[in-house]
């Protein structure tokens, strides 16, 4: 059992908010891919972002790291604790200084996320030296620290592993290396984009465990992006449900998954709840197919597939809830009819 020792850096203690995203809007060419995305994450909080293809969940993660394509039009604001400026519209140099230090990311595909021609240890050490500043660029120290990190993420023989090339490691081991890179500088925010989708169930379990313990030890904020509801439920405390480039529902995991309000969330939960359906019997479904990115209907993005849609759904539903982190945007929310 490895304890991920975090070298806690003095952070702005006045507020526990790590990430604050306000009205994030992304357009690429004629496609409007993200609409008014607003959410925030506090220190030590683990937030899940659920969405199917085209929902804009990966785009959101890239926006957080300032890695959107050059020709994307971004508006809104992304503030990160400890960073004095808005990430939206920031210069590439400033963003580069933040990436890997204040915010780090774990991507989906461990097989291709590492440079095939560079030793694993060097790839870990690199992220340390990049952000070490002029004084701290001691290669040897960085390498030693890299081995230490590889040990912490549970690679057997971390010394040997550091000298290995990526192709010599299995998928799960590679993803551990990626996690080690992400955690190397004790970021205040870790973004994971489908980090275990490509992995086997048993490997997934260990990587999830690793991520959760890694962020807990650092008291870091986690944004965990996935399409798998049960993974979110297992890992996160709070959840954001995205569909068609919007956040359609948000709240504590137990709340949202027990009592979904948005019709999409409701349908999604029903369709994926194989446990409660009769074996071999029919499953509840959402009709139609997920439109491709940027081609969702206006008004309520879900209305083209929603059984409850009426004319009013052609207008954009307002956010119903106490704050952006709690509530939903639906004209005909579930639970309402029960109440009525």
């Amino acid at each position, binding site marked *: 059992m490895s304890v991920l020792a975090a070298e806690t850096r003095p952070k702005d203690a006045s507020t526990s908010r790590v990430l604050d995203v306000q009205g994030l809007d992304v357009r690429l060419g004629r496609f409007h891919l993200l609409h008014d995305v607003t959410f925030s994450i506090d220190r030590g909080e683990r937030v899940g972002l659920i969405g199917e293809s085209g929902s804009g969940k990966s785009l959101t993660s890239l926006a957080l790291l300032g890695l959107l394509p050059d020709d994307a039009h971004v508006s809104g604001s992304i503030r990160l604790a400890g960073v004095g400026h808005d990430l939206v519209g920031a210069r590439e140099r400033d963003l580069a200084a*933040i990436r890997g230090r204040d915010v780090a990311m774990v991507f989906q595909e461990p097989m291709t996320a590492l440079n095939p021609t560079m030793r694993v240890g060097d790839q870990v050490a690199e992220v340390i030296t990049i952000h070490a500043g002029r004084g701290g660029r001691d290669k040897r120290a960085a390498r030693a620290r890299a081995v230490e990190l590889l040990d912490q993420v549970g690679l057997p023989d971390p010394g040997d592993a550091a000298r290995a090339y990526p192709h010599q490691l299995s998928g799960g081991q590679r993803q551990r290396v990626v996690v080690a890179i992400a955690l190397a500088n004790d970021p205040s925010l870790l973004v994971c984009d489908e980090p275990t989708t490509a992995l086997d169930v048993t490997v997934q379990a260990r990587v999830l465990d690793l991520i959760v313990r890694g962020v807990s030890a650092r008291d870091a904020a986690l944004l965990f992006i996935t399409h798998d509801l049960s993974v979110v439920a297992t890992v996160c405390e709070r959840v954001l449900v995205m569909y068609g480039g919007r956040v359609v529902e948000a709240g504590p995991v137990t709340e949202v998954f027990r009592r979904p309000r948005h019709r999409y969330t409701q349908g999604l939960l029903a369709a994926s709840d194989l446990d409660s359906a009769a074996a071999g019997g029919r499953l509840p479904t959402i009709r139609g197919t997920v439109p491709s990115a940027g081609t969702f209907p206006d008004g309520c993005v879900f209305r083209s597939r929603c059984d409850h849609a009426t004319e009013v759904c052609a207008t954009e539903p307002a956010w119903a809830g106490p704050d952006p982190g709690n509530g939903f945007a639906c004209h005909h929310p579930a639970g309402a009819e029960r109440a009525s």
Partner: protein
Amino acid sequence: MLLQILRRTATLVASLVVSSMLVFAFMALLPGDPARVALGVNASEASVAQMRQEFGLDRPLLSQYVSWMAGFIRFDLGTSYVSQVEIAPQIIDRLQVTMWLVVCAMVLALVIAVPLGTVMALRHRKPSGLVLSALSQVGVAVPAFLAGILLITVFAVKLQWLPANGWTPPNEDPVQFLRQLILPVLALGLVQGAVLTRYVRSSILDVQREDYIRTARAKGLGAGRALRRHGFRNAAIPVVTVLALQLATLLIGAVVVERVFVIPGLGSLLLDQVANRDLIFVQDIVMLLVLAVLLVNFVVDLLYLVIDPRLKVAT
């Protein structure tokens, strides 16, 4: 690793054997009697026959092949039918000339292609990148000899800055050597550079799409540094292949530029000996070229083992 090297060496040897047979068989097909060509038009049949015997042309093909190969392996390339001079030193002299030309041109091509191709890839959707890309396409479309003729017209004949043609060995007159080298190297290098630029561009574009570049940027490397530290080594693999092939094929391919600039290179030597039907000479040159191409490819293969650790199968 050792296995990989052995395997490639075996392939190299097999390729050499097969290609030597091809070369020899091809020579046997050449029309025109070498003895007749060597003796001139009015030689009597008797003297032609005598010459054929002297050349060994009357022996069975197999024995001709065997003795040729036996000599070749000892780098005893034999004696020219026509000039009756040892062949090996002549080829070496010409090879030196061509190597100067080709190597300088390739260096120039690289100096042009790597920065330009990178800029074109990084700005592939911006106007500056598109303009450069269009320019490189035009460069690819210009026949090298036309480029040579234009260079001569402008810089030698009109401006009189540099000699129009000729060749002086570097040890004889270094200044004249350099002055004479500039235009042919430009003609060859610019065109090769345009070709290479396209490869560098496409290779870097490919690499830029790789996930590990995204990882590098997520680590906090700027786009340029990410490319330098993680992209170039990977992008180099296909570019090295083209470079090696260009280098090898230019040994003969430079002949057109050699013609324009009156440079006594290997390509010109080959053309002359083909015309002379100096069969053994031609065989030797062609075989050496094939050897050069195969060796270059062999070295490139080994180079890959160094560049790309994935090819070194873990033990």
